Protein backbone atom coordinates (compact mmCIF):
# COMPACT_ATOMS: atom_id res chain seq x y z
CA UNK A 1 0.00 0.00 0.00
CA UNK A 2 1.38 3.42 -0.92
CA UNK A 3 1.95 5.94 1.83
CA UNK A 4 -0.43 8.85 1.98
CA UNK A 5 1.06 12.07 0.65
CA UNK A 6 1.58 15.08 2.89
CA UNK A 7 -1.32 16.84 1.21
CA UNK A 8 -3.58 13.85 1.85
CA UNK A 9 -2.55 13.72 5.53
CA UNK A 10 -3.14 17.46 5.88
CA UNK A 11 -6.58 17.06 4.33
CA UNK A 12 -7.40 14.24 6.74
CA UNK A 13 -6.18 16.29 9.70
CA UNK A 14 -8.30 19.22 8.57
CA UNK A 15 -11.26 16.85 8.66
CA UNK A 16 -10.53 16.10 12.30
CA UNK A 17 -8.35 12.97 12.07
CA UNK A 18 -5.65 13.49 14.69
CA UNK A 19 -3.90 10.26 13.64
CA UNK A 20 -2.99 11.91 10.34
CA UNK A 21 -1.11 14.57 12.29
CA UNK A 22 0.85 11.91 14.12
CA UNK A 23 2.02 10.52 10.76
CA UNK A 24 2.96 13.99 9.53
CA UNK A 25 4.97 14.83 12.65
CA UNK A 26 6.88 11.56 12.54
CA UNK A 27 7.55 11.83 8.83
CA UNK A 28 9.12 15.29 9.17
CA UNK A 29 10.61 15.07 12.64
CA UNK A 30 14.12 14.14 11.54
CA UNK A 31 14.60 16.72 8.80
CA UNK A 32 12.88 19.54 10.70
CA UNK A 33 14.52 18.83 14.02
CA UNK A 34 17.89 18.29 12.32
CA UNK A 35 17.63 21.70 10.69
CA UNK A 36 16.59 23.44 13.91
CA UNK A 37 19.13 21.59 16.05
CA UNK A 38 21.99 22.48 13.73
CA UNK A 39 20.85 26.08 13.58
CA UNK A 40 20.63 26.64 17.33
CA UNK A 41 22.85 23.81 18.69
CA UNK A 42 20.89 23.61 21.89
CA UNK A 43 18.64 20.64 22.42
CA UNK A 44 16.24 22.34 24.80
CA UNK A 45 15.83 25.37 22.52
CA UNK A 46 15.55 23.09 19.51
CA UNK A 47 12.71 21.14 21.12
CA UNK A 48 10.91 24.36 21.99
CA UNK A 49 11.29 25.64 18.44
CA UNK A 50 10.23 22.27 17.03
CA UNK A 51 7.04 22.33 19.09
CA UNK A 52 6.31 25.96 18.35
CA UNK A 53 6.81 25.29 14.65
CA UNK A 54 4.18 22.60 14.70
CA UNK A 55 1.78 24.68 16.75
CA UNK A 56 2.09 27.60 14.34
CA UNK A 57 1.69 25.20 11.45
CA UNK A 58 -1.47 23.75 12.95
CA UNK A 59 -2.93 27.18 13.66
CA UNK A 60 -2.28 28.18 10.09
CA UNK A 61 -2.99 24.83 8.47
CA UNK A 62 -5.79 26.33 6.39
CA UNK A 63 -3.21 28.58 4.75
CA UNK A 64 -1.21 25.60 3.54
CA UNK A 65 -1.70 24.89 -0.13
CA UNK A 66 -0.45 21.77 -1.86
CA UNK A 67 3.29 22.00 -2.07
CA UNK A 68 6.36 20.96 -0.16
CA UNK A 69 5.04 20.57 3.38
CA UNK A 70 8.57 20.05 4.73
CA UNK A 71 9.64 23.32 3.13
CA UNK A 72 6.67 25.07 4.68
CA UNK A 73 7.67 23.76 8.13
CA UNK A 74 11.29 24.84 7.65
CA UNK A 75 10.09 28.29 6.68
CA UNK A 76 8.03 28.53 9.88
CA UNK A 77 10.94 27.23 11.97
CA UNK A 78 13.28 29.78 10.39
CA UNK A 79 10.84 32.58 11.27
CA UNK A 80 10.70 31.38 14.87
CA UNK A 81 14.50 31.31 15.08
CA UNK A 82 14.59 34.87 13.74
CA UNK A 83 11.83 35.94 16.16
CA UNK A 84 13.82 34.56 19.07
CA UNK A 85 16.90 36.34 17.85
CA UNK A 86 14.87 39.56 17.65
CA UNK A 87 13.70 39.12 21.24
CA UNK A 88 17.29 38.82 22.33
CA UNK A 89 18.10 42.04 20.46
CA UNK A 90 14.86 44.05 20.53
CA UNK A 91 16.43 47.20 19.14
CA UNK A 92 16.85 45.54 15.76
CA UNK A 93 14.13 44.45 13.38
CA UNK A 94 14.16 41.75 10.75
CA UNK A 95 14.78 43.91 7.75
CA UNK A 96 17.23 46.31 9.23
CA UNK A 97 20.91 45.89 8.86
CA UNK A 98 23.44 46.63 11.52
CA UNK A 99 26.39 48.94 11.06
CA UNK A 100 28.24 46.25 9.15
CA UNK A 101 25.38 45.63 6.76
CA UNK A 102 24.41 42.30 8.33
CA UNK A 103 20.71 41.36 8.34
CA UNK A 104 18.74 39.74 11.15
CA UNK A 105 19.50 36.16 10.21
CA UNK A 106 23.15 37.04 9.96
CA UNK A 107 23.01 38.22 13.54
CA UNK A 108 21.88 34.90 14.92
CA UNK A 109 24.67 33.68 17.15
CA UNK A 110 27.08 31.08 15.86
CA UNK A 111 26.05 27.86 17.48
CA UNK A 112 29.05 26.55 19.34
CA UNK A 113 28.96 22.78 19.33
CA UNK A 114 27.73 21.29 22.55
CA UNK A 115 30.85 19.70 24.13
CA UNK A 116 28.84 16.71 25.23
CA UNK A 117 27.58 16.24 21.71
CA UNK A 118 31.00 16.75 20.18
CA UNK A 119 32.53 14.16 22.46
CA UNK A 120 30.28 11.53 20.97
CA UNK A 121 31.61 12.13 17.49
CA UNK A 122 34.64 10.94 15.64
CA UNK A 123 37.34 13.42 14.66
CA UNK A 124 35.81 13.84 11.22
CA UNK A 125 32.35 14.24 12.68
CA UNK A 126 33.61 16.89 15.07
CA UNK A 127 35.37 18.68 12.23
CA UNK A 128 32.20 18.72 10.15
CA UNK A 129 30.16 19.94 13.10
CA UNK A 130 32.69 22.65 13.93
CA UNK A 131 32.97 23.75 10.33
CA UNK A 132 29.21 23.96 9.86
CA UNK A 133 28.72 25.81 13.14
CA UNK A 134 31.31 28.38 12.09
CA UNK A 135 29.62 29.15 8.79
CA UNK A 136 28.02 32.60 8.55
CA UNK A 137 24.32 32.14 9.41
CA UNK A 138 22.95 32.77 5.93
CA UNK A 139 25.34 30.22 4.46
CA UNK A 140 24.72 27.77 7.28
CA UNK A 141 21.02 28.14 6.71
CA UNK A 142 21.29 27.35 3.00
CA UNK A 143 23.61 24.43 3.68
CA UNK A 144 21.32 22.93 6.34
CA UNK A 145 18.16 23.53 4.36
CA UNK A 146 19.74 21.65 1.48
CA UNK A 147 21.54 18.87 3.37
CA UNK A 148 19.34 18.35 6.44
CA UNK A 149 15.90 19.35 5.20
CA UNK A 150 16.45 18.30 1.58
CA UNK A 151 14.93 21.46 0.13
CA UNK A 152 15.52 22.49 -3.45
CA UNK A 153 17.40 25.70 -4.19
CA UNK A 154 14.22 27.17 -5.59
CA UNK A 155 12.51 26.58 -2.24
CA UNK A 156 15.50 27.84 -0.27
CA UNK A 157 15.58 31.03 -2.35
CA UNK A 158 11.87 31.52 -1.74
CA UNK A 159 12.24 31.04 2.02
CA UNK A 160 15.22 33.40 2.22
CA UNK A 161 13.51 35.84 -0.16
CA UNK A 162 16.53 36.00 -2.41
CA UNK A 163 17.17 35.04 -6.01
CA UNK A 164 18.09 31.47 -6.79
CA UNK A 165 21.54 32.68 -7.85
CA UNK A 166 22.06 34.20 -4.40
CA UNK A 167 21.04 30.93 -2.75
CA UNK A 168 23.43 29.04 -5.03
CA UNK A 169 26.18 31.56 -4.27
CA UNK A 170 25.70 31.07 -0.53
CA UNK A 171 25.98 27.32 -1.00
CA UNK A 172 29.18 27.76 -3.01
CA UNK A 173 30.68 29.85 -0.20
CA UNK A 174 29.57 27.36 2.43
CA UNK A 175 31.13 24.49 0.51
CA UNK A 176 34.32 26.47 0.01
CA UNK A 177 34.56 26.96 3.80
CA UNK A 178 33.90 23.29 4.41
CA UNK A 179 36.42 22.02 1.91
CA UNK A 180 39.32 22.00 4.41
CA UNK A 181 37.35 19.33 6.25
CA UNK A 182 37.91 17.07 3.27
CA UNK A 183 41.67 17.56 3.46
CA UNK A 184 41.56 16.91 7.19
CA UNK A 185 39.48 13.83 6.60
CA UNK A 186 41.98 12.60 4.01
CA UNK A 187 44.84 13.19 6.46
CA UNK A 188 42.94 11.40 9.20
CA UNK A 189 42.33 8.46 6.91
CA UNK A 190 45.99 8.39 5.84
CA UNK A 191 47.17 8.57 9.47
CA UNK A 192 44.76 5.86 10.47
CA UNK A 193 46.00 3.67 7.64
CA UNK A 194 49.62 4.27 8.59
CA UNK A 195 48.91 3.49 12.26
CA UNK A 196 47.15 0.35 11.13
CA UNK A 197 50.14 -0.59 8.97
CA UNK A 198 52.63 -0.03 11.80
CA UNK A 199 50.54 -2.02 14.23
CA UNK A 200 50.41 -4.95 11.86
Amino acid at each position, binding site marked *: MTEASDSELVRR*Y*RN*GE*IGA*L*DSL*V*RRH*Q*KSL*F*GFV*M*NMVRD*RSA*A*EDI*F*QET*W*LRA*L*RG*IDAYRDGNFGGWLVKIARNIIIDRSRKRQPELCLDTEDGEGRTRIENTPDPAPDPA*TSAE*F*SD*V*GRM*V*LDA*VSKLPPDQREV*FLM*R*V*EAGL*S*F*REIAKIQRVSI*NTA*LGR*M*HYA*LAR*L*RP*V*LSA*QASALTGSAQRGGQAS
Partner: protein
Amino acid sequence: MNCEKARSWILLEQSDELSAMNSRRLARHLAVCKDCSRYRNDVLRLTRLATEHLPAEEPSEEAIHRILDSAEKVRPGRLIRYQWFAARAVAWAALFVAIVGGAILLMPEQPEKRAGPEHNLSAIMAIVDENPPEEYHSRDAASRLEIERELGRHLLRIEGLLDEDLMAEVLL
Protein backbone atom coordinates in the same frame (compact mmCIF):
# COMPACT_ATOMS: atom_id res chain seq x y z
CA MET B 1 29.78 26.97 -20.90
CA ASN B 2 31.89 28.77 -18.31
CA CYS B 3 32.97 27.15 -15.05
CA GLU B 4 30.91 29.47 -12.86
CA LYS B 5 27.73 28.39 -14.58
CA ALA B 6 28.83 24.77 -14.52
CA ARG B 7 29.31 24.88 -10.74
CA SER B 8 25.85 26.29 -10.22
CA TRP B 9 24.50 23.57 -12.44
CA ILE B 10 26.39 20.96 -10.39
CA LEU B 11 24.42 22.09 -7.32
CA LEU B 12 21.17 22.19 -9.25
CA GLU B 13 21.83 18.72 -10.62
CA GLN B 14 22.23 17.43 -7.06
CA SER B 15 18.87 18.84 -6.07
CA ASP B 16 17.15 17.48 -9.20
CA GLU B 17 16.49 20.96 -10.51
CA LEU B 18 18.45 20.67 -13.73
CA SER B 19 16.67 19.78 -16.94
CA ALA B 20 17.74 16.70 -18.89
CA MET B 21 19.12 18.85 -21.69
CA ASN B 22 21.24 20.95 -19.30
CA SER B 23 22.42 17.80 -17.54
CA ARG B 24 23.80 16.58 -20.85
CA ARG B 25 25.48 19.94 -21.43
CA LEU B 26 26.99 19.78 -17.94
CA ALA B 27 28.25 16.25 -18.52
CA ARG B 28 29.99 17.41 -21.71
CA HIS B 29 31.66 20.24 -19.76
CA LEU B 30 32.75 17.96 -16.93
CA ALA B 31 34.30 15.58 -19.41
CA VAL B 32 36.78 18.27 -20.46
CA CYS B 33 37.14 20.43 -17.31
CA LYS B 34 39.13 18.82 -14.53
CA ASP B 35 38.56 21.67 -12.06
CA CYS B 36 34.79 21.44 -12.31
CA SER B 37 34.97 17.68 -12.20
CA ARG B 38 37.01 17.90 -8.97
CA TYR B 39 34.56 20.48 -7.63
CA ARG B 40 31.68 18.09 -8.30
CA ASN B 41 33.45 15.28 -6.46
CA ASP B 42 34.14 17.58 -3.51
CA VAL B 43 30.52 18.67 -3.37
CA LEU B 44 29.35 15.07 -3.35
CA ARG B 45 31.86 14.09 -0.66
CA LEU B 46 31.05 17.08 1.53
CA THR B 47 27.34 16.49 1.26
CA ARG B 48 27.81 12.85 2.14
CA LEU B 49 30.10 13.70 5.07
CA ALA B 50 27.66 16.24 6.42
CA THR B 51 24.75 13.84 6.07
CA GLU B 52 26.71 11.15 7.89
CA HIS B 53 28.31 13.28 10.58
CA LEU B 54 25.93 16.07 11.47
CA PRO B 55 24.02 15.03 14.56
CA ALA B 56 21.04 13.05 13.34
CA GLU B 57 19.06 13.85 16.42
CA GLU B 58 15.36 13.50 16.77
CA PRO B 59 12.97 15.25 19.10
CA SER B 60 11.99 13.47 22.28
CA GLU B 61 8.78 11.46 22.39
CA GLU B 62 7.51 13.91 25.02
CA ALA B 63 7.88 16.77 22.55
CA ILE B 64 5.88 14.85 19.96
CA HIS B 65 3.21 13.95 22.49
CA ARG B 66 2.95 17.57 23.55
CA ILE B 67 2.39 18.55 19.92
CA LEU B 68 -0.32 15.94 19.49
CA ASP B 69 -1.95 16.94 22.78
CA SER B 70 -1.83 20.57 21.79
CA ALA B 71 -3.36 19.75 18.44
CA GLU B 72 -6.58 18.85 20.21
CA LYS B 73 -6.58 22.29 21.83
CA VAL B 74 -5.37 24.22 18.80
CA ARG B 75 -8.18 23.06 16.58
CA PRO B 76 -11.07 22.34 18.92
CA GLY B 77 -13.32 24.54 16.84
CA ARG B 78 -13.47 22.13 13.96
CA LEU B 79 -13.92 19.06 16.13
CA ILE B 80 -16.52 20.68 18.37
CA ARG B 81 -18.29 22.09 15.32
CA TYR B 82 -18.30 18.63 13.78
CA GLN B 83 -19.70 17.08 16.96
CA TRP B 84 -22.25 19.87 17.26
CA PHE B 85 -23.44 19.30 13.70
CA ALA B 86 -23.63 15.55 14.30
CA ALA B 87 -25.62 16.06 17.51
CA ARG B 88 -27.91 18.49 15.74
CA ALA B 89 -28.51 16.09 12.89
CA VAL B 90 -29.43 13.33 15.34
CA ALA B 91 -31.77 15.70 17.20
CA TRP B 92 -33.49 16.72 13.98
CA ALA B 93 -33.88 13.08 12.95
CA ALA B 94 -35.36 12.18 16.35
CA LEU B 95 -37.75 15.12 16.14
CA PHE B 96 -38.85 14.10 12.66
CA VAL B 97 -39.50 10.51 13.77
CA ALA B 98 -41.46 11.74 16.81
CA ILE B 99 -43.61 14.06 14.70
CA VAL B 100 -44.35 11.48 12.02
CA GLY B 101 -44.95 8.72 14.58
CA GLY B 102 -47.17 10.96 16.65
CA ALA B 103 -49.12 12.06 13.61
CA ILE B 104 -49.70 8.45 12.61
CA LEU B 105 -50.80 7.48 16.11
CA LEU B 106 -53.06 10.48 16.56
CA MET B 107 -54.51 10.40 13.07
CA PRO B 108 -58.33 10.07 13.23
CA GLU B 109 -59.75 6.88 11.95
CA GLN B 110 -60.43 6.77 8.25
CA PRO B 111 -63.96 7.77 7.39
CA GLU B 112 -66.16 4.98 6.37
CA LYS B 113 -66.04 4.05 2.78
CA ARG B 114 -68.39 5.88 0.60
CA ALA B 115 -71.64 4.25 -0.02
CA GLY B 116 -71.57 1.51 -2.58
CA PRO B 117 -73.65 1.37 -5.76
CA GLU B 118 -76.52 -0.46 -4.02
CA HIS B 119 -76.82 2.29 -1.45
CA ASN B 120 -76.75 4.98 -4.15
CA LEU B 121 -79.38 3.18 -6.11
CA SER B 122 -81.72 3.00 -3.14
CA ALA B 123 -81.05 6.67 -2.48
CA ILE B 124 -82.06 7.46 -6.05
CA MET B 125 -85.18 5.40 -5.67
CA ALA B 126 -86.00 7.29 -2.46
CA ILE B 127 -85.59 10.61 -4.23
CA VAL B 128 -87.81 9.47 -7.08
CA ASP B 129 -90.41 8.18 -4.59
CA GLU B 130 -90.37 11.47 -2.74
CA ASN B 131 -90.70 13.37 -5.99
CA PRO B 132 -93.24 11.74 -8.27
CA PRO B 133 -93.53 13.47 -11.66
CA GLU B 134 -96.63 15.48 -10.80
CA GLU B 135 -95.02 16.87 -7.66
CA TYR B 136 -91.68 17.36 -9.37
CA HIS B 137 -93.18 19.54 -12.08
CA SER B 138 -95.11 21.54 -9.58
CA ARG B 139 -91.90 22.54 -7.76
CA ASP B 140 -90.09 25.75 -8.51
CA ALA B 141 -87.00 25.76 -10.69
CA ALA B 142 -84.56 25.93 -7.76
CA SER B 143 -86.02 22.87 -6.09
CA ARG B 144 -86.02 20.98 -9.37
CA LEU B 145 -82.40 21.84 -9.92
CA GLU B 146 -81.51 20.66 -6.44
CA ILE B 147 -83.29 17.34 -7.00
CA GLU B 148 -81.53 16.91 -10.36
CA ARG B 149 -78.18 17.54 -8.81
CA GLU B 150 -78.80 15.10 -6.02
CA LEU B 151 -79.87 12.47 -8.52
CA GLY B 152 -76.90 13.20 -10.77
CA ARG B 153 -74.52 12.89 -7.81
CA HIS B 154 -75.83 9.44 -6.95
CA LEU B 155 -75.74 8.36 -10.59
CA LEU B 156 -72.12 9.42 -10.96
CA ARG B 157 -71.20 7.52 -7.81
CA ILE B 158 -72.74 4.42 -9.22
CA GLU B 159 -70.45 4.81 -12.25
CA GLY B 160 -67.46 5.13 -9.94
CA LEU B 161 -66.90 8.81 -10.62
CA LEU B 162 -66.09 9.78 -7.07
CA ASP B 163 -63.92 12.69 -7.81
CA GLU B 164 -65.72 15.69 -6.37
CA ASP B 165 -64.20 18.18 -8.78
CA LEU B 166 -65.08 16.09 -11.79
CA MET B 167 -68.55 15.61 -10.42
CA ALA B 168 -69.01 19.32 -9.96
CA GLU B 169 -67.83 19.90 -13.50
CA VAL B 170 -70.26 17.34 -14.89
CA LEU B 171 -73.14 18.74 -12.89
CA LEU B 172 -72.45 22.32 -13.88
